[in-house]
């Protein structure tokens, strides 16, 4: 089975290489690029821990082949910080205590980022609907919603 040449801009940096077509985007990000902020939770398209932004849209990177992302741009949690300064969403999760174990947090932040790009002033219901593809087993979501509201107020 052959490999495929790929070229993907990840967090602003062009990444090229040869990959097996079956390589999942999440494995490329974590193992080939060493960006381990993107987590693998359920590995079955349910939990959202692996959420990244692909050409502006939140996707579950455990359910995308790396070859499909070739020619596109990927944003991961590592790309959210600018010059060492936390993104308002990252600050919001800190300020509002939006995490306990932290495993779901990168996915929560990425999906919320996509939500705020589309709707900068979401209602609580819209936030809850927007993060409905992401599971948190610690917080009960209340402080996650507050963290997103914190960020919406700052942006």
């Amino acid at each position, binding site marked *: 089975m052959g490999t495929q040449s790929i070229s993907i801009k990840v967090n602003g940096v062009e990444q090229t290489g040869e990959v097996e077509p079956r390589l999942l985007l999440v*494995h490329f990000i974590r193992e080939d690029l060493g960006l381990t902020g993107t987590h693998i939770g359920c590995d079955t*398209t349910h939990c959202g821990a692996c959420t990244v932004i692909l050409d502006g*849209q939140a996707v579950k990177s455990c359910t995308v*082949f790396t070859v499909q992302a070739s020619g596109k741009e990927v944003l991961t949690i590592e790309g959210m910080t600018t010059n060492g300064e936390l993104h308002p969403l990252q600050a919001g999760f800190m300020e509002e205590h939006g995490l306990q174990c932290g495993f779901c947090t990168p996915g929560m932040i990425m999906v919320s980022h*996509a939500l705020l790009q589309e709707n900068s002033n979401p209602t609580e219901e819209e936030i809850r*609907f*927007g993060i409905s*593809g992401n599971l948190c087993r610690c917080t009960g979501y209340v402080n996650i919603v507050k963290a997103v509201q914190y960020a919406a107020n700052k942006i």
Partner: protein
Amino acid sequence: MIPGTFEYHKPSTLDEAVALLASLGDDAKVLSGGQSLIPMMKFRLAEPANLVDINGLEGLDYIREADGYLTIGALTREAELDRSDLIKSKYPIIHDTAHVIADPQVRNLATIGGNLAHGDPANDHPATMVALGAEVVVFGPNGSRTIGIDDFFLGPLATALKANEILTEIRIPVPPANSGGAYIKFERKVGDFAIAAVAATVTLDGSGKCVKAGIGLTNVGPTPVRAKAAEEALIGNPLTDDNIATAGRLASEASQPVGDQRGSEEYKRAVVEVLTKRALHKAKARAEGGK
């Protein structure tokens, strides 16, 4: 989980895609949104030797009305259907459906064509398309052919689509005035398949009598189920609470649920009855100009 190995093909035209499928035979699968296929490949429930990625094909991503039909390109993403003003204002039943498919991330990639071509009776669009009396256009080596929705689903994960054909378009007759439809899904949690779901469409005449009805059921049979007796019981009659209750009972009888972790057969039949009544009430309200 790691899928099995495969060769990846990314054609740039429909002709090229169909030629590839013809030469690769049964060992190829079409990759559209991938939100059903990739999980199946990770579980090794599907191990195609070749994937033909159709995401590079131009002109299969549209929602428009022309010549008495709403036509939807097969590569239209669920998120686009969910956002579309045309769908929201004129086809709320399709908005109801796209809105509850899986979750936001999945809807960004998942396509309406894939949702139908996958042939899973647990998917949501099939029942809605049954209720709407849709047809699908498929493209193969000899050009296009159109298949009525009642002839499209053959069994679990089996459709009338041949191995060398690609579903390209969904065609829905523009409903006459005083029509309405609704899709109501009952699920354990966001992202799960329906315990059961019901799609209902009705058309009323000037006196409030029902002149046309469509009822499709999700995940209660080997294919989406058309509740024919329930439809027939409504046609020619006003949509009174009693008549809607009768249709609910007939739809429940038409359903063929199997008991599983989502509930017993008896429970699912009860769910179908209730959802059919709710969907018909909502469809009626919309036909009368309400929400």
